[in-house]
């Protein structure tokens, strides 16, 4: 029997709903982004995000169901991101999901947003275990071993800033538009790696650190400003991007070598970066490992990945009741 899940995602500045079949086939996906609104403030303003989610929630539902040409009655479950994220934003999606689950007497499935990013890969091709999973986003930088569905073992994580956060902050100090990832990537294409920037942290463990690199760029920009010198923005963007991403590559290489696992999945917003993709392809070739990175649409926040991650929980009947709460933080491994 086919399983249809209606999934809802509202953890940050995208309101999204999707109908996903059997955890791998996207029947419909609707996303509205508030990015332009928040760009004016140089970052996501939580209260504004919550307000905008509230205003569009039924419109997104209508769009999603129309695209799917299905009714809520035909769904087997309602899934929703309940952590991690902005609590006010999460709350809107969770309340809508609970109301739908109640009205149509459907099971409610709570999904961890980060696990959603990993399961976005199932929308492309079925993940086979064991695998190495690298999560790179505005809030997370983690390297994990995934032994089976929902079985995670952490190898390393960032000790300070997430890589996406570093991109955003560096973009801001360079006067580039929010979000910083795409801005830096676009500019880096026309630049060269000329600036010498410090390489993050220790050699032989799997942890990451991006605050040192970020501070080095900020200091450099400020110093040049004081001396009234022009920085070459394209070169600086390129230098920063290469150092930041080469560090990911170095840690993944260490893991490929030490674990002998031959599969790598990359997940989260930063996995949309093409330099990262090219470097990981190169690396996987060297180690004869297979690489999975979702297409751009599934890299950034979307509800289809939540539907994909809800599917194993549906099969195991891991349902939530109406007291389901939201949380700003979440640990994948617990």
């Amino acid at each position: 029997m086919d399983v249809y899940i209606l999934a809802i995602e509202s953890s940050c500045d995208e309101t999204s709903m999707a109908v996903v079949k059997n955890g791998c086939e996207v029947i419909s996906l609707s996303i509205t982004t508030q990015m332009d609104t928040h760009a004016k403030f140089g970052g996501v303003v939580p209260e504004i995000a919550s307000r905008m989610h509230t205003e569009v929630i039924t419109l997104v539902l209508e769009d999603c169901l129309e695209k799917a040409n299905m009714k809520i009655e035909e769904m087997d479950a309602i899934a929703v991101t309940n952590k991690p994220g902005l609590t006010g934003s999460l709350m809107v999606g969770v309340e809508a999901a609970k109301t739908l689950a109640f009205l149509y007497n459907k099971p409610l499935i709570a999904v961890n947003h980060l696990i959603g990013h990993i399961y976005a890969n199932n929308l492309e091709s079925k993940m086979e275990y064991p695998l190495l999973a690298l999560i790179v986003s505005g809030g997370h930088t983690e390297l994990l071993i995934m032994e089976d569905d929902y079985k995670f073992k952490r190898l390393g994580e960032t000790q300070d800033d997430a890589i996406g956060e570093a991109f955003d902050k560096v973009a801001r100090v360079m006067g580039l538009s929010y979000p910083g990832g795409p801005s830096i990537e676009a500019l880096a294409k026309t630049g060269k790696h000329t600036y010498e920037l410090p390489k993050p942290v220790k050699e032989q463990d799997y942890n990451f650190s991006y605050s040192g690199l970020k501070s080095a760029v900020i200091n450099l920009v400020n110093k040049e400003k004081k001396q009234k010198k022009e920085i070459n923005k394209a070169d600086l963007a390129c230098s920063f991007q290469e150092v930041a991403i080469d560090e990911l590559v170095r840690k993944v290489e260490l893991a490929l070598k030490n674990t002998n696992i031959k599969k790598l999945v990359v997940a989260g917003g930063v996995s949309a970066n093409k330099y990262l993709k090219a470097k990981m392809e190169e690396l996987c070739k060297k180690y004869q490992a297979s690489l999975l990175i979702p297409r751009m649409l599934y890299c950034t926040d979307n509800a289809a990945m939540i539907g994909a991650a809800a599917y194993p929980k549906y099969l195991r009947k891991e349902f939530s009741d109406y007291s389901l709460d939201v949380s700003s933080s979440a640990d994948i491994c617990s």
Partner: protein
Amino acid sequence: MYTLYIDTHDKELVFVLFRDNEVLAQKRRVSEKHSKYAISLLDEILKDNKITIDDVGEIIVVNGPGSFTGVRIGCVIAKVISYTKKIPVKAISYLQAEALSYEGEVIVGIADKNGVYGGKFDREHKLLGDYFYLSKEEYKNYKEKIIIEGKIDLNKVYLYMKDKDSINPHVLKPIYVKRLEVENG
């Protein structure tokens, strides 16, 4: 016909069921986290009265002002029920609901920890001008009398809303009144 009334603007989560023009049942719960209890409370009030959501012919939701998150919870529930089940929804501000208890022109208010939400209503209980928010300091120096009772008469609310038009659930949204810091900058 049943009318479902939802009020989540303050610390008390309120669901009321009206039948044939009178209050049939109420469920109230004081909580810091409405999101945890709202749907269970809704489930209870329907079950206790042996009806389902499909027996509800109309929804009245208090769409603010008050706790931002609180108001959003009531609005999201009302929007989703109204849109999916095609049940007409009507919205009333808590200030207007309060004003219904007074004859003639009146200014009513709701106090929160930093100040007072207010609104002036004419003898027909229509809002005059805009809702406003006064800091504690501004409230102290305010020239006109603001009635901050906080009590409403559910029957009056029901009667007042009876001949009002329902609104499209897609456009139903909370009344926030307060400006955000980033908007002032």
